[in-house]
């Protein structure tokens, strides 16, 4: 294990593992978007005055945030097999048989719970007077949400969102446990072929750190861009 040999192998591992980057990004990106759409509904439940939707939404958030993602992934991927007959009957077995579908479903349901909390927190931070003012000038409920409440909620939630995106990139590594060959999956495969786990897993780690560094830098830029607008107006 000489120094030069280490760097040669490290470099080779980097180029081999970078093939997994698009898959990692696809897993994280798809789940984040699907999770976001679902989270809008859950956030609405969390903020609802009615007891039933509010308890359902809070219960959902509690279950997904207080149990490990790995359990959620296994529950969906392996657990669905126990009800194969049922899924075949309703024609969804083709989906639940697919590791990709199960991974994205689990990741999306998981991030949905976290995003719902962020969105609800952002919406709570919008001053009530603004909503009243918008209603007073005759805006519909939909327009108040889309043009007044939501943009401000997003800006408020942005720093925490950057964190959630980073956590999701990290979370995609768990998809490797159900046969998906993203960065970690490829690293595991390569490590068992070459018997050089240290260099290979270190290279995989470096790729993740690079991706996450870029994401954090991107969000910082976006925050600056959006808050410039805010300071001008006040």
């Amino acid at each position: 294990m000489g120094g030069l040999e280490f760097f040669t192998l490290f470099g080779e591992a980097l180029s081999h593992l970078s093939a997994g980057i698009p898959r990692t990004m696809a897993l994280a990106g798809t789940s984040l978007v699907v999770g976001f759409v679902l989270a809008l509904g859950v956030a609405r439940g969390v903020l609802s005055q009615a007891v039933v939707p509010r308890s359902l939404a809070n219960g959902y958030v509690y279950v997904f945030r207080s149990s490990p993602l790995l359990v959620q992934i296994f529950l969906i991927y392996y657990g669905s097999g126990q009800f194969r007959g049922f899924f075949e009957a309703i024609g969804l077995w083709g989906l639940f048989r697919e590791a990709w579908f199960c991974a994205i479903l689990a990741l999306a349901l998981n991030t949905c719970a976290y995003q719902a909390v962020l969105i609800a927190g952002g919406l709570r931070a919008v001053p009530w007077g603004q909503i009243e003012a918008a209603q007073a000038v005759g805006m519909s409920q939909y327009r108040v949400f889309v043009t007044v409440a939501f943009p401000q909620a997003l800006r408020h939630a942005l720093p925490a969102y950057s964190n959630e995106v980073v956590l999701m990139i990290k979370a995609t590594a768990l998809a490797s446990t159900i046969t998906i060959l993203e960065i970690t999956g490829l690293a595991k495969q390569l490590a068992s072929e070459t018997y050089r786990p240290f260099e290979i897993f270190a290279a995989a780690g470096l790729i993740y750190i690079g991706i996450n560094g870029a994401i954090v830098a991107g969000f910082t830029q976006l925050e600056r861009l959006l808050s410039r607008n805010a300071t001008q107006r006040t």
Partner: protein
Amino acid sequence: MDLGILAWGDTGWGDELARGVLTTVAIAAAAYLVGTLIGILLATMKLSGSPALTMPATIYTTVMRGMPEMLVIYLVFFGGGALSSWIASSVLGIRGRVDLPSFAVGVVCIALSVGAYACEVIRGAVLAVPGGQMEAAEAVGMTRWQRNRLIVAPQAFRIALPGMTNVWQFSLKDTALVSIIGVTEVMRTASIGSDATKQPFTFYFVALMIFIVIAYLSQRLFTRMQHSADRGVRWGA
């Protein structure tokens, strides 16, 4: 779903799962304690003001927070195993593979990542103690050690508690990952049970419920700690 398979004893998996719960709680608690110590050390380094100390602490937290926890476990368990095999063969002259103890590796890996998150919480809490109090303490002639111990630490503890509650939840959930290196905690027990009985949903659902119950009970414990730490605090003062 046949709940008979969860019976206690030879006919069911109840006792195996209970042992898994003990292992899960043991790993989470040990990793949390070690991780908090790492966090205190890192926060002290970051607050020292000296670049020679701040830099390594910043690099550490950036690396640990940017890398998937599962990869950290693979790196330490397999990478560390390969490294110690190499040391064993070339330095000590022992042939063959060296396997690291998976329980200890699990605790260390979770503690390493818990430490990075705890560092930020503790650093923020120390900075949130009003600066005027430090000046006042200095004015009445307290030494640096006395100030830290009597003025900063008790208040920082109270401020850090909500954040450290989240870090505990992290630690608890991360224990599921050590199942991949063969530690028979709740998750691994559920996997073994589901392979043996062909009832994966039942077992993973039970595992899910176990984690939720542990999270709920420990949350209550932290809430009580928070109440006791908040005694004598005048809100809005």
